[in-house]
């Protein structure tokens, strides 16, 4: 369903062809990272710290090296020491500790042997002596006066150089006069919130095979961006990028968690030392203990409003707990405050270090935490004013020209259109079923552009190969093929979309930030447009006319006398490519760009749910997601992104959390105990795609991958409030926590 009329009639865009890589994936032929094996391949195993923070006094590998089948052992000493200011210094230390471990699960050594069992046994025989250091396990501990350092290599960014600190960023965004506006407000609501660490939960564990023969690391792995794997691996190994080649395997889910590396340099070094290819595959426990969760957070949000529902001011305090390595989670969280006009705004944010796994991006990173808090407070304002929550938001919704928290005006955005679509939806227009209550909330994400390349080769038979460097996480090959088919005017199944290795296509940034269909798609369209110019010139030669007399219409060259008037036939693309040799050789084009103009995407979600007052369990009975896609290239995969993001958010809202013991060991490092939603937990996820085209993309694409995870937590919290009168302020809203609040009523 499309809520807004797309003004352009496309032939291919907006259709739902079977994805080109689909067949292999339903018959079991598709090769994911762990499915690759090389002749003579060894298996690796990694030794991980059992302590959250400790000095490494000694590592004794002698017993392990003497064990059967063992071919090589590596520790931090095998890797070059990068300068602490190097952009990949933290990544290098996170891949393999050097003298100090920063979280329980931190890699400290690795071994490779003929079989997996031999490698595991040898890893268990590596003896490490630790000297425990104080471990910081919470944001409050991290920010406490005189707190010990989680990582003495960390310095606060964006401020004059100072002493090492637990704070990676301390930033303030502000406009207007917040204190005066709060004093003038008719209604002020202030509440505190917290969020536990949650994991991206991709089903495919991290895996790679590396063959370091001939002085070059040949890497096969699953990642969201193999060019970043190349540069990070090269930096950690201390070699030039050209000494690393990365071939992307199919990727079994990423959600931001596969935008960095963990295994590749270790496998490369084990391969170099053993002279054999080495395969490393994480167990699920390793994935949870040692790959990036999303940050934890503590937030305090205060919003002021007038009696007629104008949101006049927001005053926020946000702290994000990111593990023991700095990033900018706090600042990004504040920047994501962009849904409402808020003439007065103050956001004080912190990024705090903790001795927990190094956090990684997770779908609209930092935005879900902030939206959970703000959308809960805005819901309270709507209740106090007795306003419909959509009407309150419509009154304050940001439109083109309104300022984000960062101070920059929005480009053309579709929040109002999304709110109106939700308001008009069958879901919102009908009453909740007996015993259920309703909540809704809004989400925002920027989306990004960045660098992409595409090469399009036309084959002699009129088919086309579309070659990009964007790993296909959820149907992007089909989207690339659709955009190429639309531009060239040929059948979508005449196109073979290919994700090529780092030596076979131009540099392309990671599939992240909802950017692949936007930026790589734009490169595909530009390459196809270049080809149309070439095709017209070849057609002019064949037709014997001037090139400016040739037009490209519906996949064929047309000129006067060749389908352009009363007489003759157009020259199809296949007829032109068949004569390529006679007219100048192969037809091929490449486009590369650093795309600006990524279109922000808004979403509006609505949930009907029941709360079991005896158990505290929440059952979602109806759920609808509305999102502005700009243009939906392949609507099924746009819906899929909206549904997948919604359900990840539902898991975040209701169940998912890292549970640490007093020493920082994760107590629930399995899919049994870290429980992500299963089919029987959920209703169908209804979707409404809104299309407010992004003027910066040839077909109006905004990017849809991330925004869907932003609204669910507040959507559900608001519905629980409607159901029970209880305002939940701690994620997850798991049955014990809900029950406790119900009993406190």
């Amino acid at each position, binding site marked *: 369903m499309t809520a807004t009329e797309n003004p352009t009639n496309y032939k291919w865009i907006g259709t739902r062809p079977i994805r080109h890589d689909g067949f292999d994936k339903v018959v079991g032929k598709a090769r994911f990272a762990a499915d690759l094996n090389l002749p003579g391949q060894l298996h690796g195993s990694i030794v991980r710290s059992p302590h959250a923070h400790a000095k490494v006094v000694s590592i004794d590998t002698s017993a392990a090296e003497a064990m059967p089948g063992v071919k090589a052992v590596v520790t931090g000493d095998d890797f070059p020491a990068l300068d602490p200011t190097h952009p990949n210094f933290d990544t290098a230390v996170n891949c393999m500790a050097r003298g100090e471990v920063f979280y329980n699960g931190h890699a400290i050594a690795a071994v490779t042997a003929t079989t997996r069992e031999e490698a595991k046994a040898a890893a268990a025989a590596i003896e490490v002596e630790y000297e425990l250091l104080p471990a910081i396990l919470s944001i409050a501990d991290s920010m406490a006066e005189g707190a010990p350092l989680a990582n003495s290599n960390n310095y606060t960014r964006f401020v004059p150089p100072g002493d090492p600190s637990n704070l990676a960023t301390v930033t303030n965004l502000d406009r207007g006069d917040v204190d005066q506006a709060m004093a003038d407000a008719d209604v002020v609501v202030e509440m505190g919130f917290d969020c536990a660490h949650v994991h991206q939960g991709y*089903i495919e564990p991290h895996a790679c095979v590396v063959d370091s023969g001939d002085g070059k690391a040949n890497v096969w792995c699953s990642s969201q961006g193999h060019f970043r794997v190349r540069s990070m691996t090269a930096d950690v190994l201390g070699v030039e990028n050209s000494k690393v080649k990365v071939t992307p395997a199919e990727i*079994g889910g990423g*959600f931001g968690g596969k935008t960095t590396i963990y295994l590749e340099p270790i496998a490369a070094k084990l391969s170099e030392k053993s002279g054999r290819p080495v395969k490393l*595959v994480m167990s699920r426990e390793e994935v949870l203990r040692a790959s990036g969760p999303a940050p934890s957070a503590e937030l305090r949000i205060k919003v002021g409003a007038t009696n007629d529902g104008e949101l006049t001011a927001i005053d926020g305090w946000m702290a994000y707990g990111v593990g023991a390595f700095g990033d900018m989670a706090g600042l990004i969280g504040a920047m994501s405050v962009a849904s409402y006009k808020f003439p007065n705004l103050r956001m004080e944010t912190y990024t705090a270090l903790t001795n927990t796994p190094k956090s990684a991006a997770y779908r609209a990173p930092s935005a879900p935490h902030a939206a959970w808090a703000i959308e809960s407070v805005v819901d309270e304002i709507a209740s106090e004013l007795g306003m419909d929550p959509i009407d309150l938001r419509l009154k304050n919704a940001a439109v083109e020209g309104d300022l984000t928290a960062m101070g920059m005006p929005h480009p053309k955005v579709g929040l109002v259109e999304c709110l109106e679509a939700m308001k008009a939806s069958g879901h919102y227009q009908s009453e909740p079923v007996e015993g259920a209550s309703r909540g809704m909330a809004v989400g925002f994400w920027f989306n990004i552009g960045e660098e992409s390349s595409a090469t399009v080769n036309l084959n002699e038979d009129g088919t086309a190969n579309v070659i990009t460097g964007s790993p296909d996480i959820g149907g992007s090959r089909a989207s690339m093929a659709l955009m190429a088919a639309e531009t060239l005017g040929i059948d979508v199944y005449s196109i073979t979309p290919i994700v090529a290795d780092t030596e076979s296509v131009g540099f392309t940034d990671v599939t992240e930030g909802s950017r692949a269909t936007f930026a790589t798609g734009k490169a595909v369209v530009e390459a196809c447009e270049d080809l149309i110019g070439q095709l017209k010139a070849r057609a002019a030669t064949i037709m014997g006319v001037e090139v400016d007399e040739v037009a490209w219409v519906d996949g064929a060259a047309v000129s006067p006398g060749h389908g352009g008037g009363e007489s003759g036939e157009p020259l199809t693309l296949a007829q032109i490519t068949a004569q390529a040799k006679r007219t100048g050789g192969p037809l091929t084009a490449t486009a590369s760009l650093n795309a600006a103009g990524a279109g922000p995407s808004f979403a509006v979600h609505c949930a009907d749910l029941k709360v079991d007052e005896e158990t505290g369990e929440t059952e979602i009975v109806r759920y609808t997601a509305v999102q502005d896609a700009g243009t939906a290239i392949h609507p099924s995969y746009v819906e899929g992104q909206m549904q997948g*993001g919604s359900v990840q958010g539902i898991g975040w809202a209701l169940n998912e959390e890292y549970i640490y013991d007093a020493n920082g060991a994760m107590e629930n490092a399995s*899919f049994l105990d870290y429980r992500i939603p299963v089919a*029987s937990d959920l209703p169908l996820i209804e979707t409404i795609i809104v299309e407010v085209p992004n003027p910066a993309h040839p077909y109006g694409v905004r990017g849809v991958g991330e925004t869907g995870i932003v609204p669910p937590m507040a959507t559900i919290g608001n519905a629980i409030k409607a159901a029970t009168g209880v305002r939940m302020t701690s994620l997850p809203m798991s049955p014990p926590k809900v029950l406790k609040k119900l009993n406190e009523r």
Partner: protein
Amino acid sequence: MSADSTSLLDALRDELGLIGTKEGCGTGDCGSCSVLFDGKLNCSCLILAPEAEGREIVTVEGIADGDQLHPLQQTFLEGAALQCGVCTPGFLVAAKALLDENPDPTETEIRYGLAGNLCRCTGYDKIVRAVQEAAVQLKTTSEQGA
């Protein structure tokens, strides 16, 4: 030929080259390694390879009839019921087990029938719909055949 401690999953993948069966957890919690073991749905990571001696094992590679995809495979493709595709083999095997047992399941029965399989991409919506559509197609085929 497998060692006594080798799992059926590892034997399928490493010794028979049947890589369609995936390992997502190794502890029987995700269903990516689902196989039919004498017609019953099981996690192959929890079965020792020697236990499979003399038994009929069906993996995702054995669902299609030659080049003719099983209706579940076709409806998964047409309904975009896969995104990354790594859980898909397990879901196809589990859905086949479900429809073999119950050719006309309700939405709730489908959801409980697939509750042992984790998917992190789709939110299950399009998977449930694809299984519903396959059930309709299979029923039509069997009625025509009868």
